[in-house]
């Protein structure tokens, strides 16, 4: 069991880095979509299109750019995670009630002040739920990383399949499931606290 720990840690690290990148890009794209109506259509269309590409095909394409290894799976996960984050950021910002936006404007907040003091804080619960979806998805998709030479829990699963070693397969799959359930549970708890007001 202890020899699994490095795989688990690497798996987590890959997902967290990918999520970090995805949040950074996704929230910015969400904000741009909110500010520039014209950009919204393009950005939302692009993130949706990415989602329709099968994971394996996406990884294969990215491999051409990033080569074998963790970089490719991180890029793939980040792209995959984009849609829920962009969409929820956009929806969250657009659905801040009009009177609140008007009050903020009428009181003399600049566009950036409105964004950071009012709109983003109010949209945050929804953005966070987008991040949760991304993380949980990424935890399972990351398993495919092994096919393009990345680390993580995909490795023991793949080896188990090759050697028809059921115990090895489970030793990789169970931690993935546990992590997914755990993250979903913990992040849902946080989300509940966020939406209290």
């Amino acid at each position, binding site marked *: 069991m202890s020899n699994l720990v490095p795989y688990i840690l690497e798996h987590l690290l890959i997902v967290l880095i990918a999520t970090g990148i995805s949040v950074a890009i996704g929230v910015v794209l969400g904000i741009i979509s909110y500010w520039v109506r014209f950009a919204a259509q393009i950005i939302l269309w692009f993130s949706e299109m990415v989602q329709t590409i099968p994971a394996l095909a996406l990884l294969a394409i990215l491999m051409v750019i990033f080569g074998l290894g963790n970089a490719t799976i991180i890029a793939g996960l980040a792209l995959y995670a984009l849609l829920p984050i962009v969409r929820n950021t956009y929806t969250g910002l657009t659905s801040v*009630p009009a*009177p609140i936006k008007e*009050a903020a404007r009428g*009181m003399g*907040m600049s566009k950036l002040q409105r964004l950071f*003091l009012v709109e983003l804080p*109010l949209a945050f619960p929804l953005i966070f739920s987008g991040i949760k979806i991304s993380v949980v998805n990424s935890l399972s998709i990351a398993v495919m990383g092994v096919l393009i030479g990345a680390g993580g829990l995909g490795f023991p699963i793949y080896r188990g399949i090759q050697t028809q070693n059921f115990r090895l397969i489970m030793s990789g799959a169970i931690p993935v499931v546990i992590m997914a359930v755990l993250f979903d549970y913990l992040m849902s708890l946080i989300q509940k606290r966020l939406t209290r007001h």
Partner: protein
Amino acid sequence: MITFQNVSKSYGRKLVLDNLSFEIKEGQFVILIGPSGCGKTTTLKMINRLVKPDSGEIYINGINIMEQNPVELRRGIGYVIQQIGLFPNMTVEQNISVVPKLLKYPKERWQSIVRELLEMVNMPYEEYAHKYPSELSGGQQQRIGVLRALAASPPIVLMDEPFGALDPITRDALQEEVKKLQKKLKKTIVFVTHDMEEALRLADTIVFMDNGRILQMASPEEMLRNPASDIIKEFMGRHINSRGPAELYVEDVMRTRVLKVPKTLKVLECLDRMDRWEVNSVIVLNEDDTYAGTVQLEAIQEHGKVGHEIGELVSQDTPTVSRQCKAQEVLDQLLDSPYKYLVVLNDDRTVAGLITRTSLTKAIGEALWGAKS
């Protein structure tokens, strides 16, 4: 202090403000009122540049607001909206201190402002400062909305139907508070409502708008006395009668539904009509519709001859008054005279109506205690 010069605005092909010009003086409580869609909100939002005029100029203290930075302009103008618009992610204290913080007041300064303001509306700092808007009642939320607008002591405060969504008791209390605050802090307040009662209660000046134009701009007293058009009259509805009894005129208290008959009517026919109207006296008119006199039922019973005309029995003993007489003067006449009523005449001596003791008592009662709704 605030000057509109030939301001117009259209949305699409609809002209919303039609060449509006007016001036609001410093320290005045000005109320914009009028039917829904007449352009009150649009006018108000132009003052803090939330809406841009298509043409015309707006000056504040002689400076064209289009030449000012909109963000800075707004920080100097308080703004309260009907939906309150408190920031749900901020505590009461944070909400009130938004503008002072934007203006970079030091912490001690904005904190003492928050304390002072909360005290003014009897919401103790310790109890309320750290609550979130969702933990407050509607009335408390709107109080905070008003305080938030006052926090940086702006000389001008704009309010768009701030109390429209509140229950009558809370609304009463808040109107009282706002009026007091305005007197104490000497603000210029521009306030939108479509509740005439609110307008009469709060305003120094009422601006009555319709279809993007100003129909009348006057003090509440003046508007009650001389409403410039029928729409205004209609808007004021029962308030037009609810000035003090001292300001009632005969035309306000008279009955207009009265039985009038021509001189030439036959006695029997006249009796018939009086019977149907259930009255025991009748007003008689000359051929040109001017007032000829009255006939009492007793007179007909004593002297009436079948087939004769009613004109033969006319008496001119019933006192007459002009419709522009003060009701107060008429009251004495009515109480002193043996007649149960007075005839009200127009300037051309046609009959406008009559005043009975009942109609007068009712009108005075309404003026004192308000109309029964």
